[in-house]
Structure formats: structure tokens, C-alpha cells
């Protein structure tokens, strides 16, 4: 039987404000427990929430980025439930009148096609604290530093039909929130959390019962969790069973999803408008001011890289994955004046070194200026591409600029014809047998055999001879 997978995602993006959404406590990550939980965050009697302007600005920027309908009037509501990491007994969220209305993003599919995925809404809300269940002699420890951190919950339409599409959409949102500077995107620290609503059905039928997958902290796990869940639901249905609407936790170690609790009762949140907060009204002047300095968005930048720099679409996509990477690349192009070399080195040696050392581009020890400077030396023939790898490695290890390293290590390419000729003669004299068989071989074979001589000359020059000149001289002298 043919099954169709239907996926919708709920993404919680922690907004990169300095203070909390309703209080003046710091949102900095990693502080000692409860040192950033003030009386508002603790839900002390008599305190009142006051909305953070920056959180509102960030929601407006997101709305502009996905071309959504921005609500001129939105309302905060109380979502009521009891849990120790939620001291007030309710979470301040938005239900009926969210700040960001319908919008959409384009995702790039595996076959190179783009597709639109609908964003139903995005609303502002406060985060809860953290419960620690281990090591407290049968008690639970609660850290409320995170309580009150601003979140933008971004809800998609059930538009995705495979785990790959869901990952492409999540990556796109991840890319956008970082480009517009509203979220640091750190999934390990929980700044960007993805929950997946997954169901299956026969094509054309009504939506099936969905399970909500939580506890997914990487894109890789998102794909695996969905694939596992789809298999589980299909097996269940084909055996005559029924899917229960519930929350399931993904366990990465065992690569499976497990039932957490039935949502039936937990879902009864008894929302009502929060009387402590007035409706949020946005005027056109404020909106214009907030969206005036919107950066170039990922899709626009990708197509510019494609058109202006003549990069292949796949390379343009790679180089615009993040704003710091795209900025870095453009700076290298500016300094080196060579787009092709810049693309090759940024995607090659630089990315390789970053991966190897587990670093982000912003922490690269080779700056865009340094890499650009080195590429200039390749372009003007001072060093060969091969030696450049040595220079790059030396720069990476903190050996100074390309020019300093080339000078200090004597890596300058030998372009003096006389010097190269001498090396060529030495190699020919030292290998009479190979020379003899070269001269007797046909043209096709000769082309192959030439490599041996080029290699010998390069070795004798310790890699510094200009390979083109070596080739030319060998062809003349061997015949």
C-alpha cells in the first residue's frame, strides 16, 4: 500500500536579546543556577510583566524576512499548566492574535527544484526554566535562569512530505533567523529547538492522527527521528492498529521515539487574554524603522553569487549557508581579485581546516584578508598552488601573513628559466634509461611518461619550480 508522510514543524527560536521578554534579568547563557531569575521570572506576588521592545523588533524582522502578514495588533494570552519550571502556573504566549501571520519560505529539494513551505504563524512567548532530575536524593532541582527568555515560536503548515523536506525547511528557518540577527541558532545550547508533527495517510485521504516528536537537537536527528516515526506508524496501521495522538521523545542513542505522555489532558491549557499586558499595537513608522536595515536575505544572496560571481548554484548555496561565511568569501574576493580561487580555497582548505578543528568561521585563525593576500601570490605566480597549501597551513598555525611565510621559508616559485633549465638537464642526465624509452615511445605514451620527469624536476626544486615552465622545457629537451 502507498503511504504519504505529512510533516509540520514547530520551531522555537530563542531571541538574541540582552534581557528577558518581560523582565530586566539577563539572558546570558551558562550563568550559575538562578542568578539570572528575578522576581518577575519567579512569579512573585504583585510583579508585572513589561514587554521588551527588542523582542518585538525581532518578530517584525522575521515577519519581513518571510514576507508574512504582520499583525498591527497582537495579544498576549496565558497558557495554563502546572510544572515546577513554570513558577507562575502559566506561560505568557500568544494564541488567537499572534504577531506574525501567514508567510512562506522557499526550500531547495534534492532534485534541485525549489518549493514553497507555508508558515502558518509565529508568536512571541516566554521560555520556561529547566528541571534537573538527577542527584537530589529523590527531589528535582529547578534552575529558572532560562525562565522568561524570549522565544519566537514558528509554526509551519503541514506542507512537508518527507524527512528530507522537513530538514530543508528547518535549515532554511535556521539560516534566516541567523541572517537577520535575531537568534544565534545554537542547537546544542537549545537556542533553536525543533518539534515535528508527523502523520501518515493514503494519498488524497484526510490527515492521519499525528504524533509530536520532541527532544531533537540536531538536523541529523530530526531526519532520523521522523524516519523512525514514519516506519513505526506505517507498521502499526498495517497491522490493524491505530496511531495515538501523543508526544514522543526521540532517543538518539537508541535511534527511536518513545511515548512521553498522552496529550489529552495536558492539551487543556485554558488560554485567556493576559490582563497584565495590553494589546501590542505597531505603527507604520516603527515598522519602517525596524525593517530599514534588513540585510540581504539568503535566497537573494545566493542568486547574486550565482549571477555576479558566476558560481555554480550548488557552490553559491554552500557559500551563502551562513552570513559570516558569505561575508568572509566576499572579503576574500575583494582582497584577492580572483573569484574562482576565492571560491576554491574557501570551500576547500579553509572549510577543511575549520571542520578538522571544529571551529566556526568567525573563529578562523586565517582572516579573509590573510587568505586573500595569499591568493594574490598564487595569482601573480609567486607561489604554486601546491606550495600555497603549506603557506595556508603555516598561516593557520599562526605563522604570520602569506608574504612573511613565503619569505621566511624561501617558498618563492622559481621562474628563472636558467635555473629551471639546469634542473631539467640534471634530471635528464640522471635517468638515461627513462629518456631512451621516452624517445622510442609513441606520442600518446610520451604524454603519460612526461609526468615522471616533471615529478623528478619538481622534487629537485623542492616544489618551487614553476610547473608550466618545467613542462615546456622538458618537451623541448626530451625530443
Amino acid at each position, binding site marked *: 500500500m502507498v503511504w504519504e508522510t505529512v510533516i509540520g514543524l514547530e520551531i522555537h527560536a530563542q531571541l538574541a536579546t540582552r534581557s528577558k521578554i518581560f523582565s530586566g534579568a539577563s539572558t546570558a547563557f551558562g550563568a550559575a543556577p538562578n542568578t539570572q531569575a528575578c522576581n518577575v521570572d519567579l512569579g512573585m506576588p504583585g510583579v508585572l510583566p513589561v514587554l521588551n521592545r527588542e523582542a518585538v523588533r525581532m518578530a517584525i524582522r522575521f515577519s519581513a524576512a518571510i514576507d508574512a502578514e504582520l499583525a498591527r495588533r497582537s495579544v498576549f494570552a496565558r497558557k495554563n499548566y502546572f510544572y515546577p519550571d513554570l513558577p507562575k502556573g502559566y506561560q505568557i504566549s500568544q494564541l488567537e492574535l499572534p504577531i506574525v501571520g501567514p508567510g512562506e519560505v522557499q526550500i531547495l529539494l534534492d532534485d534541485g527544484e525549489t518549493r514553497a513551505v507555508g508558515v502558518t504563524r509565529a508568536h512571541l512567548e516566554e521560555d520556561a526554566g529547566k528541571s534537573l532530575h538527577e542527584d537530589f536524593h529523590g527531589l528535582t532541582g529547578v534552575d529558572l535562569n532560562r525562565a522568561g527568555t524570549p522565544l519566537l515560536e514558528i509554526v509551519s503548515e503541514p506542507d512537508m512530505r518527507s524527512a528530507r523536506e522537513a530538514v530543508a525547511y528547518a535549515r532554511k528557518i535556521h539560516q534566516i533567523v541567523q541572517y537577520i540577527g535575531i537568534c544565534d541558532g545554537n542547537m546544542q545550547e537549545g537556542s533553536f529547538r525543533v518539534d515535528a508533527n508527523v502523520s501518515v495517510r493514503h494519498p488524497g485521504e484526510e490527515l492521519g492522527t499525528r504524533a509530536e516528536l520532541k527532544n531533537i537537537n540536531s538536523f541529523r536527528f530530526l531526519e532520523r527521528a521522523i524516519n523512525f516515526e514514519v516506519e513505526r506508524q506505517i507498521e502499526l496501521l498495517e497491522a490493524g492498529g491505530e496511531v495515538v495522538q501523543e508526544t514522543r521523545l526521540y532517543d538518539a542513542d537508541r535511534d527511536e521515539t518513545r511515548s512521553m505522555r498522552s496529550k489529552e489532558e495536558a492539551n487543556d491549557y485554558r488560554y485567556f487574554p493576559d*490582563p497584565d499586558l*495590553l494589546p501590542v499595537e505597531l505603527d507604520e513608522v516603527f515598522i519602517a524603522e525596524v525593517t530599514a536595515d534588513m540585510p540581504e536575505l539568503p535566497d537573494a544572496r545566493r542568486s547574486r553569487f550565482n549571477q555576479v560571481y558566476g558560481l555554480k548554484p550548488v557552490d553559491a548555496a554552500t557559500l551563502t549557508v551562513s552570513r559570516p561565511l558569505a561575508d568572509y568569501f566576499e572579503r576574500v574576493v575583494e582582497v584577492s581579485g580572483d573569484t574562482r580561487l576565492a571560491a576554491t580555497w574557501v570551500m576547500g582548505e579553509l572549510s577543511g581546516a575549520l571542520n578538522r578543528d571544529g571551529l566556526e568561521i568567525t573563529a578562523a585563525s586565517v582572516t579573509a584578508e590573510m587568505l586573500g593576500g595569499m591568493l594574490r601570490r598564487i595569482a601573480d605566480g609567486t607561489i604554486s598552488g601546491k606550495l600555497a597549501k603549506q603557506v595556508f597551513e603555516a598561516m593557520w598555525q599562526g605563522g604570520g601573513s602569506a608574504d612573511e611565510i613565503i619569505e621566511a621559508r624561501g617558498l618563492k616559485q622559481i621562474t628563472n628559466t636558467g635555473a629551471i633549465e639546469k634542473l631539467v638537464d640534471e634530471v635528464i642526465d640522471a635517468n638515461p634509461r627513462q629518456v631512451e624509452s621516452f624517445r622510442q615511445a609513441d606520442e600518446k605514451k610520451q604524454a603519460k611518461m612526461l609526468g615522471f620527469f616533471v615529478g623528478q624536476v619538481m622534487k629537485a626544486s623542492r616544489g618551487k619550480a614553476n610547473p608550466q615552465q618545467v613542462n615546456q622545457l622538458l618537451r623541448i629537451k626530451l625530443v
Partner: protein
Amino acid sequence: MPLDRSDVEKIAHLARLAVSESELDAVAGDLSNILDLVEQMDSADTVGVTPMAHPLHMAQRLREDRVTETDQRERFQSIAPATENGLYLVPQVIE
């Protein structure tokens, strides 16, 4: 829309209120009366009326994004029933 005893039990549980067995009928009656009142309002013509989210006709004032709170953990935790290593301790909750 009359509520019965089981509705009251459910609502009381969600709100973590202890409503005793003997009170159930009375509470069900009181709550039903309130709902009847709301139902009467349903007959009013509200076409063209913007739903009211707040009795004050004002918009929310916004705060600058500045950290203004200092660490007062010691004071807050001095009135907490149990703490350890800076954490508030509560009866175990297991998901």
C-alpha cells in the same frame, strides 16, 4: 450549558483546586449559572465590534532591552522550602 459533577472534577483538577465530594453539586450549579449569563450575552448583536482583549483602551508600552536586575538569589532562596547548589528543590517530577 449546564455542567455536571465530572466537569467540575476535571476543571478542579486542572486548576489544582480541592473541591470536596459534598461541594460538587453546588459548584456545578454556580458555574452553570455563570455560563447561562454568558450565554445570554451571545444574543447581543456584535457584528462590527472588535473583540476586546483588555478593558483599557491603550496599547502596550515597550521597555528598552537593558539588563536592570542584579543577582538576588540569596534573598529569594532564603524563603524557599529547599535549595541545593543554587537550585530550588521540589518534589520529584518525572516525565
